[in-house]
């Protein structure tokens, strides 16, 4: 092993997934059909905070074609409970259907099951609920006031977790002596992941297999199985979760939805298949949101622009409940742990809280706090440069973890594996210069429009296994994944993993990895994932983990099968297995051109003529390997240019550059696609996207006319340059990179906006920056000059 030629890894192999999608033969949950299929519709709370009195289901149940109406009471009050094993954590069970209290608009209270989805919606409207509205809590500010209503009796001041993660007694002295102290309040709006396919679920009992078969649009089939089993009190064996084609997830589908459990419960009671397909209004109001955070942060710098200390109060509005299995702590823990990012921070203090409000719960949306912490650090760099009269790129350079400093042990206790933080910044700066962005910016400024260029440097911690995840102290600690690689008698290869791709091209990239190990063509390798009965327990696809962990496990398992093939070939060709080379579908003996045997022939002999082989080589070609790495950091530098119309305040993305380093690139086309899609989401978070509520907690962005996702017209081409610093913590050398685009873009775009306003005293520290923010600020509204809010809130 280890001397295998890598022929496919690194190539832009066309995606195997494309064909069925292009032909209209993708198979999404809503495309499936079953004899006797019934359809679910949910009755949802119209109030942000309300007691629930009597629920009258009689009229709905009496409608012809309605097969069942279920409430919390009639289902036996099942709930999902996500737990963190920390004293500072307040558990908040999430009922499958709200019983006594509903805590956000859209919270499900009853489910109606009928023969037709139109009819199910009709019947849901006939369910009469005795609501008794209570005052809602709709902001971090309001949640913490002494007389604020409590969402959960056990959560005083609506604090669901309150973590002083790091502290340093020297910080007051450091700040007192610093040449410059900069800071402010940095805020990011609540956003929706918005996969084009909403959540969906089809569940039906299978008498023969004695199990409930659930097709779910999910990123985490095994966790759906665990969640349903825990909520309904049944063994996991009795549930099979299959993720068919999944129309995007972005984190929304890496948690278990209560609707999925409700559909399972209804299917079990009715012994009929039941489907629910979320509509867009439900998706925008009653699914999960994310990224609503406030940072009160300050940083101390010496006169050369070197960071001396960092201090942050981090508040995450995580909505009404802890999500399963990650809990409400996923955002605050990530934020506090990783805030220092790519910079050397000698002294650090961070307190991070999850605050309950009467809004939909937060799920780990793409980036998970990294878009926010990068925004904070990159704004602090800019503010320091301004305060000290230095070049902001140079200030970054002076603080980046340098090439010679890896592995770097941070003040946050994290070990950063090899990256190219400074090289990425240098290359981005050089490229921007070579492409004359400055001249273009100045030319735009000459026309009366405003233009600005912004940078963001960051790393993305990816693919953490249980050695790292265990530090979060989750009751369910994710991280490992298991691959089974089998070769069939015709030499074709079947790979199963616990990962669950939904657009990332796993079927192609995993095949590239395995094909290299086995010396076959990727077209001979079929990945089967997203099925709890096919794969060993695994943790799905999120956290930029799949190619590193699932792909790493597949590499190791494939290497083990390759070793079996070498022994079989060595035995048949009377050579040492160490001299057998697997390539181009053939096992060859090195240095002997005549000694060769097709790999398919080896597979045939192993299966059909086992007697020809020694006993330990007989009966199959397969290996199952689990991989549980500590995690690895990819890194990138983004540069953005925006153009602002000072009359309308409209901000247009004009140029975008990404220099990224995800180690060994398995498939550059797929990597570039992930980067570009991520940049679109991140740029939109800076310019467009915002889940809004009124003071009563009523959603104001319940349609795609009100929640603005970016179209092609809002995007500009994204140029991408690659650096490759392989990781020693990754079997393939690849680092995860599924979230980086989304992580870097908000900061780069926000810095570009501020650069466009550099000649004014306007500085924005929040996203999204909307046209009305720009026009109001330019009209001379009370926007304080940069840095004046340093230490706010202390």
């Amino acid at each position, binding site marked *: 092993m280890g001397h295998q030629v890598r022929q496919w890894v690194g190539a*832009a192999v*066309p*995606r195997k*997934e*494309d*064909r*069925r*999608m*292009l*032909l*209209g*033969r*993708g198979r*999404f949950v*809503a*495309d499936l*059909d079953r004899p006797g299929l019934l359809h679910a519709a949910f009755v949802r709370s119209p109030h942000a905070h309300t007691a629930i009195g009597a629920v009258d289901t009689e009229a709905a149940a009496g409608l012809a074609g309605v097969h069942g109406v279920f409430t919390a009471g009639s289902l036996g009050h099942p709930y999902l409970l996500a737990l963190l094993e920390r004293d500072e954590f307040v558990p908040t069970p999430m009922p499958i259907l709200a019983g006594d209290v509903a805590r956000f608009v859209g919270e499900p209270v009853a489910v109606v099951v009928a023969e037709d989805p*139109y009819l199910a919606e009709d019947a849901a409207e006939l369910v009469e609920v005795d609501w008794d509205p209570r005052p809602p809590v709709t902001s971090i500010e309001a949640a913490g006031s002494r007389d604020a209503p409590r969402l959960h009796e056990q959560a005083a001041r609506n604090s669901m977790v309150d973590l002083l993660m790091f502290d340093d007694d020297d910080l007051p002295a450091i700040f007192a002596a610093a040449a410059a102290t900069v800071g402010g309040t940095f805020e990011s709006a609540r956003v929706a992941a*918005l*996969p*084009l*396919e*909403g959540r969906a679920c089809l569940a039906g009992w299978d008498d023969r297999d004695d199990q409930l078969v659930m097709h779910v649009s999910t990123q985490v089939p095994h966790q759906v199985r665990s969640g349903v089993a825990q909520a309904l009190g049944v063994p996991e064996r009795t549930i099979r979760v299959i993720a068919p*084609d*999944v*129309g*995007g997830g*972005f984190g929304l589908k890496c948690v278990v939805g209560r609707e999925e459990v409700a559909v399972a419960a209804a299917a079990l009671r009715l012994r009929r298949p039941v489907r629910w*397909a979320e*509509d*867009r209004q439900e998706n925008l109001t009653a699914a999960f949101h994310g990224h609503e955070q406030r940072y009160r942060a300050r940083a101390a710098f010496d006169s050369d622009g070197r960071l001396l200390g960092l201090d942050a109060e981090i508040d995450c509005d995580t909505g009404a409940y802890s999500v399963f299995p990650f809990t409400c702590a996923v955002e605050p823990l990530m934020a506090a742990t990783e805030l220092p990012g790519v910079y050397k921070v000698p002294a650090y203090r961070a307190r991070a809280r999850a605050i309950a409000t009467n809004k939909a719960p937060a799920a780990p949306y793409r980036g998970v706090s990294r878009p926010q912490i990068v925004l904070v650090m990159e704004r602090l760099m800019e503010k320091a440069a301004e305060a000290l009269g230095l070049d902001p790129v140079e200030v970054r350079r002076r603080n980046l973890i340098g090439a010679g400093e890896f592995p770097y042990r941070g003040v946050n206790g994290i070990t950063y594996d090899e990256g190219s933080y400074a090289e990425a910044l240098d290359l981005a700066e050089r490229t921007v210069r070579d492409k004359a962005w400055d001249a273009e910016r100045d030319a735009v400024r000459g026309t009366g429009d405003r233009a600005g260029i912004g940078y963001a440097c960051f790393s993305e911690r990816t693919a953490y296994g249980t050695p790292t995840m265990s530090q979060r102290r989750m009751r369910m600690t994710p991280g490992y994944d298991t691959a089974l690689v089998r070769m069939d008698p015709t030499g074709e290869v079947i790979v199963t993993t616990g990962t669950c791709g*939904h*657009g*990332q*091209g796993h079927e192609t990239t995993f095949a590239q990895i395995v094909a290299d190990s086995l010396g076959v063509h990727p077209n001979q390798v079929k990945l089967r994932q997203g099925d709890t009965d096919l794969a060993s327990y695994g943790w799905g696809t999120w956290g930029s983990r799949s190619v590193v962990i699932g792909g790493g496990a597949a590499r190791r398992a494939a290497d083990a099968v390759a070793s079996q093939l070498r022994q079989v070939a060595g035995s048949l060709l009377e050579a040492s297995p160490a001299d057998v080379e697997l390539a181009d579908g053939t096992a060859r003996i090195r240095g002997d051109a005549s000694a060769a045997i097709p790999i398919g022939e080896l597979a045939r002999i192993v299966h059909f003529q086992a007697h020809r082989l020694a006993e330990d080589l007989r009966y199959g070609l397969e290996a199952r390997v689990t991989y549980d790495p500590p995690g690895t950091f990819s890194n990138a530098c983004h540069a953005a240019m925006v153009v602002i119309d000072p009359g309308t305040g409209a901000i247009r993305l004009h140029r975008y550059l990404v220099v990224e380093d995800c180690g060994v690139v398995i498939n*550059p*086309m*797929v990597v*570039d*696609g992930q980067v*570009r*899609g*991520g*940049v*679109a*989401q991140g740029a939109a978070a800076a310019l467009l996207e915002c889940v809004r509520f009124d003071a009563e907690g009523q959603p104001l962005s319940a*349609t*795609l*006319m009100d929640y603005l*996702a970016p*179209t*092609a*017209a*809002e*995007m500009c*081409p*994204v140029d*991408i340059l690659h650096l490759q610093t392989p990781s020693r913590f990754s079997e393939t050398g690849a680092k995860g990179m599924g979230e980086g*685009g989304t992580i870097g873009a908000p900061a780069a775009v926000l810095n570009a906006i501020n650069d466009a306003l550099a000649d004014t005293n306007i500085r924005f520290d929040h996203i999204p920056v909307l046209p009305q923010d720009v026009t109001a600020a330019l009209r001379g509204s009370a926007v304080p000059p940069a840095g004046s809010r340093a230490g706010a809130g202390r």
Partner: protein
Amino acid sequence: MKDMHAVRVTVNGRGHELVVEARRTLADMLRHDLGYTGTHLGCEHGICGACTVILDGQPARSCLVFGVQADGAQVRTVEGLADGERLSDLQQAFSDHHALQCGFCTPGFLMLAEAYLAEAHLTGAGGEPLTEEQARELAAANLCRCTGYQGIVEAILATARARAGGNGAAEGSPA
């Protein structure tokens, strides 16, 4: 009593006769009554365009059209683009330019572009080649959450150029 209507519709050249409720959308009729599940529903209020089909030659949001309104109409769906098992030039260009990831919005973009290109918008008004800006404007009719649109714009441009008699649609490596 349900308000039922008889509908005759031609989908991808094949005639269908059925009876549908007045309120049933064309999208649901295509997907669940006729089995053309390649047409996807992303918002059901006319914004995302995932359900775009070609209705009597024009791109249409099938979530905003009732099934009964398609009585007597010719409908093209994504299932009708390929020549048997052979991808059309547009479909191939989408793959070559990595214009899809999860694939959910893809049928809508394909039908949108197909309708546009079929109207011979292969060149600009003055005969100059279709510009990136024009392709971007076209693509802005629909939503994709995965790709950032660059591949979609490139695929539409490449197909337009090839159909206008320029270089092959599959020219150039993706990205």
